[in-house]
């Protein structure tokens, strides 16, 4: 396969977009929005286009981090027009008077990865081979650059109804609550841009190689023929549980992180697994034994098609495979990072279960 030993990429090509989408969907951990919404826009660019992919330790000075906020279901009903992210970047550039020299997806999981690529293509800026969570997370204040430092918090959103909001916040939590409130009241979703921020200052707190990793995972998942369990070992992951979904219970409170729980039984081994989930899959128990937890990546794939299944699509009767991939090492390197993404952050009273790839 060789995906993991490939030399760092220097550009993202048209032929890479399907693998990027597939890897981003798996890294979405059941959330992050449907990559299928933006994939056609990237495919339309044809096989020959290329976006420069810059490593973190390049000489660039300022970058902007982009993502989409709000309801992914509304996003599916009112798809982006393509101008939202460029407009959001323009807004923060105007406000700060600084020009962004590179684009980074705030989260590699889900459709943001494709959004950032489209933005880079449209604006002619290079794409940083990095992101700020290495997966998908539900909140802005979970971004890695906020864990140990206090970067300047200038952000802009362009809501689906065309409204532009620029916020100068004093804390990540304030940023999160202010924008979340604005998005909820102005159309359901928004394109988000943060920065431009100094790369040299924040480089150490960013997750390097995220785009390459998404591509590698995507290639592995798409590789026909090889059993999924063998294929994912190449990228450090494993199929930890499989079987038919027995029940999916969604609790009534959508504001809490943990919205529901689902169980599945493996007809072959008899193992019974249970998932705890919110907008992503948070916690996995197999036969009553904790098997995986956030911040590691828990992704549920359709056993037949290998298509990732989002938490709100999971239904009883579906045959699934539960894939676990290690989180970006950053998360486990410092408690300042870990406490922003461990099970207790999501309201699950349990210790994190660090993933040790076999």
């Amino acid at each position, binding site marked *: 396969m060789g995906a993991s030993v490939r030399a760092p990429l220097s550009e993202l090509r048209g032929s890479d977009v399907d693998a990027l989408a597939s890897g981003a969907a798996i890294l979405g951990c059941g959330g992050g929005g449907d990559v299928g919404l933006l994939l056609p826009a990237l495919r339309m660019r044809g096989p020959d286009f290329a976006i420069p992919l810059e490593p973190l330790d390049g000489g660039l000075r300022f970058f902007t981090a982009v993502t989409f906020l709000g309801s992914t279901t509304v996003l599916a009903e009112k798809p982006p027009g393509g101008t939202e992210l460029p407009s959001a970047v323009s807004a923060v550039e105007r406000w700060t008077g600084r020009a962004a020299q590179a684009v980074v997806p705030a989260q590699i999981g889900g459709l943001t990865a494709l959004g950032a690529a489209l933005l880079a293509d449209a604006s002619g800026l290079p794409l940083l081979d990095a992101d700020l969570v290495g997966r998908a997370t539900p909140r802005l204040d979970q971004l890695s650059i906020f864990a140990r430092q206090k970067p300047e918090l200038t952000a802009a959103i362009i809501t689906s109804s065309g409204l532009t909001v620029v916020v100068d916040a004093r804390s990540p939590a304030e940023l999160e609550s202010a924008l979340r409130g604005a998005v909820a009241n102005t159309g359901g979703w928004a394109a988000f841009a943060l920065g431009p921020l100094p790369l040299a200052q924040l480089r150490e707190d960013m997750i390097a190689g995220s785009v390459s990793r998404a591509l590698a995972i995507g290639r592995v998942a798409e590789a026909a023929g090889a059993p999924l369990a063998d294929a994912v070992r190449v990228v450090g992951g494993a199929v930890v549980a499989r079987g038919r979904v*027995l*029940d999916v*219970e969604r*609790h009534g409170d959508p504001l809490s992180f*943990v919205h529901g*729980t*689902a*169980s*599945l*039984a493996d007809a072959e081994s*008899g*193992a*019974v697994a*249970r*998932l*705890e989930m919110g907008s992503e899959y948070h*916690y*996995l*128990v197999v*036969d*009553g*034994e*904790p098997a995986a937890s956030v911040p590691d990546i828990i992704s549920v794939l359709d056993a037949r098609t290998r298509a990732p299944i989002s938490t709100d699509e999971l239904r009883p009767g579906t045959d699934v495979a539960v894939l676990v991939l290690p989180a970006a090492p950053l998360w486990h390197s410092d408690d300042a990072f870990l406490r922003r993404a461990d099970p207790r952050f999501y309201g*699950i*009273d*349990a210790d994190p279960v660090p993933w040790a790839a076999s």
Partner: protein
Amino acid sequence: MSAQLSDLLAVPALQGARLFAGDAHVDIRHVLGRAGNPRRVAVDLVYAEPDTLLVLIDPVDRFDTRFDVLLRRARQAGVAAVAFAGEGGILPGPGSAALAHRLQLALVAVPDPWEASIHLHEQLAATDAPAVRLTWRVAEVGLAAGPDVGETLRLLQDALGYPLTLLDPTGRTVAGVAELDDANRAVLATSAPSGRPVQLPTVASTLLIAAPVGTGIGARAWLASEIPRRLPAEADAVAGALQTASIAIGHRLALARLVDERDARYRTGLLDELRATVPTSPPELAQRAIAVGWRLDAWHVGIRIVPRNAADVIALRRDVERAFQAERIGVQIVEQDSGWAAWVSSVAEPSVSAIRALSDDVRRAMTALRSRIPSNVGIGSVQAGAQGLVRSLGEAADAARLAANRPETGYFVHIDTLGLAQLLLAWTQTDTFLPAARELLAPLNRVGGDLRHTLAVYLDSGASVTETAAILDLHRNTVANRIAQIQRLLGVDLGDPETRLALHLATRTLNEE
């Protein structure tokens, strides 16, 4: 001590509990109550005795991964079953049930975990507390209940928590649902003198506990309950409570007997007075008769039932009543020194066919009664008024005496037919008829066997195959075959009334020889 989970869940105090998943036959030795959420319980639960039932005292708000982890930890610690609050709260989903199956752990939903843990503990710790509480409850109810036996039984049953059955001394069910098989009935009969409760295993894997009920009069009855077999503590508790209950029931039975005896004596006295005073009975006597429901100024047919063995006429009166009721015969029954005097009254003079129908009904009722009480039965003729009643009862008594020697009529004689028969017999005791009769029936004698007797009974019973079969205790097909055989042997048609008359006279004449 250990008990099967299914048996524990059958204890009345735990009847709200139900098995949610897993094996009901798992053995339980210990009960462990734990408060706190599933994570707390799981963290604290390092070791439990083998075969422990873990009771989660606090309701589980979500059956999520924490509950799964708890099940796993509990199983590792030695727990065999987990009980949780199953009322008012949410219930585990199929996933939790599947995991319980996989871990071979039973899941039990209980209405009140705290109460359940106490009851379970008492069952398993073999303390006297449940027995004392049960006996106390039964004693309270037994004291407070009214004089009625049925009502007292019902209240005791509620207090006991198990269905309660009253059995007669032979183990036959008098009230309640439990029916004993022959083996257990025999055990009851032999253990009667001990006065101690007996425990009888049943085929349905339950234990039937029976306590003797003494009334001081007659043989002991039994009070019985069925409980799950493998709960010795519960068995002892129920046995103790049944003994207490049997005192209460014995008291009610004695009271009822007292009332029955007083009523019986009053009726017997009233009838004796009537017999002594007719036709000049004082009006006061007639009034008392009317007060007990006797219609003296009507047409009466007297019936006399005399048991062939010694019988408790007061206790058995109910059986006689039931026998008449089964045939829808409205009778007055009065206990006599031996047996019962009874009569049927009607305002209008009954027709001959009505009398015959009545006679047939009474005969059927008495055939049914005979299986319980072997007895001779006589019926008098139709007579009017108080004086007629006394006369008809007298005739019935005479007929009953005659019936004692008439097995071929089922020990049943109706005075109307008796009169005619005697008349006819007087006519046929002649030198000319006897040889003719012998010759007529000779073919039957040559074949031997019961053909002549069968013919006699058949003709006596009005040419009824069914009736003959009942009297001879044969299948009706057998009787029909015999009759056909008789017709062939004699070369006669029994459908012809004149043939029947001749044969009837012949059989009677030869029987009198």
